[in-house]
């Protein structure tokens, strides 16, 4: 359950500048997101999940290999997860 620990750290992080792509991708995968087959062009990776009400959420990350993601990418990801109440055990 290391991904939950990483997510909790992300949520509280005022300066989220130390997270790698694979850490963020693992969280999204655990939360039910999937990547389209075509999402392999360039370094942009789009993770998608469809909610029961038919809404589709797409979250963008950039796979920069062993480097870290930009803080705005983590902030955007957290904002989208919060907006759609997808963070486990977090009150809406």
């Amino acid at each position, binding site marked *: 359950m290391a991904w939950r620990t990483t997510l909790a750290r992300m949520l509280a992080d005022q300066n989220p*500048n130390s997270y790698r792509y694979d850490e963020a991708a693992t969280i999204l995968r655990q939360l039910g997101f999937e*990547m*389209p*087959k*075509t*999402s392999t*062009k*360039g*370094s*942009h*990776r*789009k993770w*998608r999940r*469809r909610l029961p009400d*038919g809404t*589709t959420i*797409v*979250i*963008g990350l950039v796979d920069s290999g062993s480097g870290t993601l*930009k*803080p*705005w990418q983590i902030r*955007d990801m957290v904002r*989208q997860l919060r907006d759609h109440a997808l963070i486990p055990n977090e009150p809406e």
Partner: protein
Amino acid sequence: MPWTHEQKVQYLLLVPWTIVPDVTPEGDRLLRVGELPAAVGSGVTDEELAKDFWESLEATLDAYVDFDDPIPLPAGVPPLPWTVAAASAPERQPSFMVDAGSSASDVQEFPDTAGLQEPAPFAVPVRVPVAA
């Protein structure tokens, strides 16, 4: 002929998306799409920013098209032609009646073509604003 994945993405790239420049607290310059939160480009120079933005937008549209998900379009943009054709294509039904006394030359056919014509694609491609 059905639209291919690539044709749909190319059509969608010409939609007049709402492009919003942004600067992060760390000083990163971004271009966002108002309707598609996942479509964000970044870059130091204008050229890098524009290139990254288009790559991100294309990858985002790829995702929507790949899963055949509904795409949040800007206000005023007509429905996507492949969704209109699928929703309103009429069933094959006889469009005329022949009574016993008619010959084939008496028959006039009035096919219903409503909903079968593809709307013209957008004539003016969206331009990327150059952030100050």
